[in-house]
């Protein structure tokens, strides 16, 4: 899966906007959206929010977890514990990137937020690699990691599954098993 595909899935998340136009309720296949009244906040999926923002038809309100204090707490907790902390949104990385790229004027202290999220991401990836390494080193049969997001899994997934595949092949050599099939003529 490409990161772009993970981002596509992330765009379904809901975010609050304040439109500056009015529109009746619209009926889409996935559900209803609206009605839109100028000045009244409404919840829409991220894909629509970004589109409206680009056309300057709305103002984005950052999600409540996208705040310097909260993100600092999350980052510190991530650094302290060995396991993964539950993230405020399963798509925190994608939402950060999208919202900060298109709507940074609506989000206070955008640069600090970007740095904090990146720090948290780096810490989580380092933990993931450490746990993958110990998994391989001790040749465990089963591991369970909670609270991982799809983007993290996607980044390391292919590498890990291929490496485990090779280990499996090397391990099957340990059981010589049936005798070789040779032809006698």
């Amino acid at each position, binding site marked *: 899966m490409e990161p*772009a595909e993970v981002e596509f899935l992330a765009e379904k998340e809901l975010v609050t906007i304040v439109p500056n136009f009015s529109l009746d309720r619209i009926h889409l296949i996935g559900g209803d959206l609206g009605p839109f009244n100028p000045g009244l906040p409404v919840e829409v999926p991220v894909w629509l929010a970004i589109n409206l923002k680009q056309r300057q038809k709305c103002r984005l309100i950052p999600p409540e977890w996208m705040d310097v204090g909260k993100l600092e707490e999350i980052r510190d907790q991530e650094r302290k514990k060995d396991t993964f902390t539950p993230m405020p949104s399963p798509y925190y990385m994608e939402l950060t990137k999208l919202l900060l790229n298109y709507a940074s004027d609506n989000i206070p202290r955008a640069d600090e937020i970007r740095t904090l999220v990146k720090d948290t991401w780096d810490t989580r990836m380092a933990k993931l690699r450490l746990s993958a*390494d110990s998994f*391989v*080193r001790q040749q465990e049969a089963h591991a369970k990691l909670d609270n991982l997001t799809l983007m993290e899994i996607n980044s390391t997934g292919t*590498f890990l599954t*291929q490496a485990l595949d090779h280990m499996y092949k090397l391990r*099957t050599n*340990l059981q*010589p098993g049936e005798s*070789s099939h040779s032809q006698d003529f």
Partner: protein
Amino acid sequence: MSEAYFPVGPGLGMEENFLSLDDILMSQEKLPGRAESALPRLAVMLGRGAGSAESVPEGSKLEIPLWLAKGLHDSKRRIISVELPKIYKEAWRTVFSADANVVDLHKMGPYYYGFGSQLLNFENPENPEIAQTDSVCSLQTFIARFRRIMDSSQNAYNEDTSALVARLDELERALFQVGQKGLNDFQCWEKGQASQITASSLVQNYGKRKLAEVDG
């Protein structure tokens, strides 16, 4: 799935995949061996004589590629006997168990793991224990080097990786490239290039004249 063509990977354990390019290249590696019986008229083919009618005398030492050794190997009609190349022997095994990261696996035959698996095909009388210790050693080597490969592939973005890759054998190199690709895809996405339309590298190689040149 963005690829239209899936290359066939190397085979599992003692079997090779017939269609795998890696396996084909790997089976070209040479093994030391001995001719157990005289091989009539094969001297030229095996590079040991000039005349076309010469035969390889019994007991002479040969270097045979793996595909030939597999074909000629038969425990009943003893045509050739093979021995393990020195990298799979005792001396090297202690080196591996000391520190597997230091060994330059590319120099020792670029297909260390695959070749080692294939060697189990030859039922040497002392093979069972050698096979066991050999496979265990292969596995342990792989595990020890795994960490190094993972770290270097996930952290070297846009740098020259030839120094890192020089000491890995082919299997590890493929793994390294997978890791690099994951990293590159992620960085590319983060920079926003994933949604930009760029010319495909194949088309750029055609070297077509650009529109500006045609007009002028």
